[in-house]
């Protein structure tokens, strides 16, 4: 019974990682950039939600404002920091991404100050009892909302025209441009969607763990990155799979090994994946990218 309960705990953490990992993977798929500022977009999203929630807005407005705000922020970051470097060596873009991450973190430090803010409880908490299991309503909401957005994204990418454009640009930007696809706006859209998902992760994280702080994006961001690599970076289902695996590994490491070792084990996965199967679990030689 404890095992199943731990499985559920892992599911909650995992779904947050999965949602954040999606943004990493989509951006990588389309511009071959590891966007290290992604964790900070998540943090900003959490702050947007915090501001909206403290202003007393209803829950749907909190989600909407936070996700829209972050989408705009993501597009702005792309336009200002990454677009000018699109033809530069990849390492330059990577360094810019790290700089962007530090910039956003310090910006939050200046605006919101260092002390953590307490997120209002926008989700009512009713523990649900199923036999011996007790599941908090926040766990259920986290899981349901993330899975719903993942399904929505999968549908969007596979079945709609803009989704098709994304896949085309990801496969071959020049060819896609020749076919009449506007690569710039497609890339902008990818950043917007990825950032909105990061904000979703940020809200769920903030609500579940009650606090928002300028440094909150760092660790979940890194773990989501590992999740994306684990599943195969650039592959959307891979990010989801990687996120859930990370959640389970972290929870079980804490439960059956030691809390002190949990992070070491989680990041150890990155080393193992890179040395054994650098393309990740779902990675193939001919990849179907975003």
């Amino acid at each position, binding site marked *: 019974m404890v095992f199943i309960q731990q499985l559920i705990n892992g599911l909650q953490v995992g779904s947050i990682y999965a949602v954040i990992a999606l943004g990493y993977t989509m951006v990588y798929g389309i511009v071959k950039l590891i966007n290290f500022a992604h964790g900070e977009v998540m943090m900003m999203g959490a702050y947007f939600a915090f501001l909206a929630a403290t202003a007393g807005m209803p829950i749907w407005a909190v989600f909407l404002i936070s996700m829209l705000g972050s989408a705009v922020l993501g597009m702005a970051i792309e336009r200002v920091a990454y677009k000018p470097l699109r033809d530069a060596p990849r390492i330059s873009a990577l360094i810019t991404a790290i700089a962007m991450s530090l910039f956003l973190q310090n910006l939050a430090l200046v605006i919101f100050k260092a002390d953590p803010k*307490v997120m209002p409880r926008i989700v009512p908490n009713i523990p649900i009892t199923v036999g011996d299991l007790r599941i908090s309503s926040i766990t259920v909401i986290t899981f349901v909302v993330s899975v719903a957005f993942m399904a929505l994204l999968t549908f969007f990418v596979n079945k709609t025209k803009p989704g098709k454009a994304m896949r085309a640009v990801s496969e071959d930007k020049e060819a896609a441009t020749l076919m009449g696809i506007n690569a710039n706006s497609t890339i902008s859209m990818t950043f917007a969607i990825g950032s909105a998902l990061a904000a979703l992760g940020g809200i769920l994280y903030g609500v579940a763990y009650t606090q928002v702080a300028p440094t909150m994006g760092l660790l979940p961001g890194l773990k989501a990155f590992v999740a994306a690599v684990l599943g195969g970076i650039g592959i959307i289902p891979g990010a989801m799979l990687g996120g859930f695996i990370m959640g389970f590994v972290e929870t079980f490491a804490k439960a059956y090994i030691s809390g002190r070792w949990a992070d070491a084990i989680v990041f150890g996965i990155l080393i193992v994946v890179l040395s054994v199967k650098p393309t990740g679990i779902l990675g193939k030689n001919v990849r179907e990218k975003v």
Partner: protein
Amino acid sequence: MKKRLLSGVLAIMLIASVFTFAACGGGDTNGGEDSDPIKIGVFGPTSGPIAAYGSAVVNSVKLAVEEINANGGIDGRMIEVYDYDTKGDRAEAISTYNRLRDQDEVVAIIGGTISGETLAVKELAIEDNMPMLTPTATAADVTIDAPSIFRACFLDPYQAAAAARFSIDTLEAQSVAILYNSDDAYSEGLAESYKAVFDEEGLTVTNYIGYTTNDVDFSTALTQIRNADPDVIFLPDYYDSVGQIATQIRDMGLEQVCVGVDGWDSVEIDYAEQVEGYYFVNHFAKTDPDPTVQDFIAAFSEKYDQEPNALGALGYDATFVMAEAIKNAGSTDGQAIIDALASIEYKGVTGTIRFDEQGDATQKDIAIIKLVDGKHELVEKLVVE
């Protein structure tokens, strides 16, 4: 080689003579006229990230001095207080100490506020035989082999023992789960001391789980705790982590009562609902009906327009203890004040202060507080043997 050795010895002698001279100079001026004010110093971080700690102490010391002077000072002599901001920095603390000794010529010091800065000036204070009373530095090292340094607050093993005694005697706990921060010496030390009492009594510690500072998800540990079903949960950490843990305890529907430590002070500001009905031990209770406590709270709130915290209460008490010691000593000579401090017994806001041979407060009252409707409710006051 020889030359270098010689010049080294010379240099040490020169430095030593400067110190001796300075110390003598201090003694002479202060021992002088009977109508001269008695100068005492206070220091702590009043700016920077932990400014709240230093400000609480400095403000309370100033308030106490004002009250003492209004009541005629020490045998007719007024107290003059010199306060400096150390920003919590060790180097800054040393230069502050030197300025207090050489420039302001204080006869005694209340400080430091945090352990680091107090340890930084420890050797200097021993060398100068400067009477120093730290209200709040909790590191054990502060008073070890330091005959001139005293401490007004209780130590962590003491409060952990009090929390454990309360859990066993009043809450009648037969088993406990301990969830602590394994990255933090404060939290880990408290967990160990608390566990020791349970082990000694032959009671059960069902879970002893460490987490790291970065952890925000405690559901794994709480699942294990729920499965073990202890009578109480002990959470030795600061209020922001405690708030997060308490929230998840409520989310998961755990019904155990939680017991905490002085780091919990202020948890009710953001997490009143989650910590409702929990207990923690503290230096004083704001709702203690004792007039000493209520008068202090009223005076502090009037002067600074905010409620005092435990650090402020300790700074306030330390000032009265020091004033009493100077009065008992009958002079401003360092050794006389130190001797007077060693034998003092003073009843203040945070309980009765008396010192053991080490210079630590001993057998101090510890307040058990219940959190009710976002307020501190005094349950009982304990003295642990």
